């Protein structure tokens, strides 16, 4: 069965008034990587997911959810 990981990155970024480039800078990745995660074309590694959670002050499971 296909697995899909959904995320709230785009909404969280918008809430904080950040651009993709600004978030990319804080995550130490490229803007294209932020875009790929937001559009769910790419699931980040666990270390990057932890960094994302830290930047937003949330738990990983509050940002990423697995869809059966």
């Amino acid at each position, binding site marked *: 069965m296909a697995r899909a990981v959904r995320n709230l990155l785009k909404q969280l970024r918008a809430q904080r008034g950040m651009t993709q480039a600004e978030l990319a*800078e804080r995550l*130490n*990745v*490229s803007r*294209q*990587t932020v*875009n*790929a*995660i937001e559009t769910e074309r*790419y699931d*980040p*590694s666990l270390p*990057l997911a932890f960094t994302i959670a830290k930047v937003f002050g949330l738990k990983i499971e509050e940002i990423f959810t697995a869809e059966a």
Partner: protein
Amino acid sequence: MTTTTSVKRAPIAYFTEFGIAMALFVAAMLLRGRFADTVSDPRERLALLAMPILPIWLALLAVIRHYRRIDEFAKLVLVRNLALAAGLTACTVLSYGLLTDAGFPPLPVSFAWPVMAAFWGLSTAVSEWRAR
């Protein structure tokens, strides 16, 4: 230099290093073509004909260094594009090899490199377009 700076500067560093390697390669090929027939000493001739080898390895080093600088998603895209280019090149070279049996002119083995570079460039361009 911080890691952040390294990621941001990765494309500039890559194009600089790869560009230098390619410029050296072109220069070596020009020298090779210009003087290959005028050098009679076997050792000097070997050194002259082998000159483009070093820039080729420098180009590979530039790609490896680029891989180490970029983030995880960019790594995935780079490896995926390289694998696709390698597969397409293998199919193209083998297909053409079979066609030489039917009378097509044989090409040197080194012909595979520009073919792979073209496929790599094409797959990278498609990836860049999709990532906009």
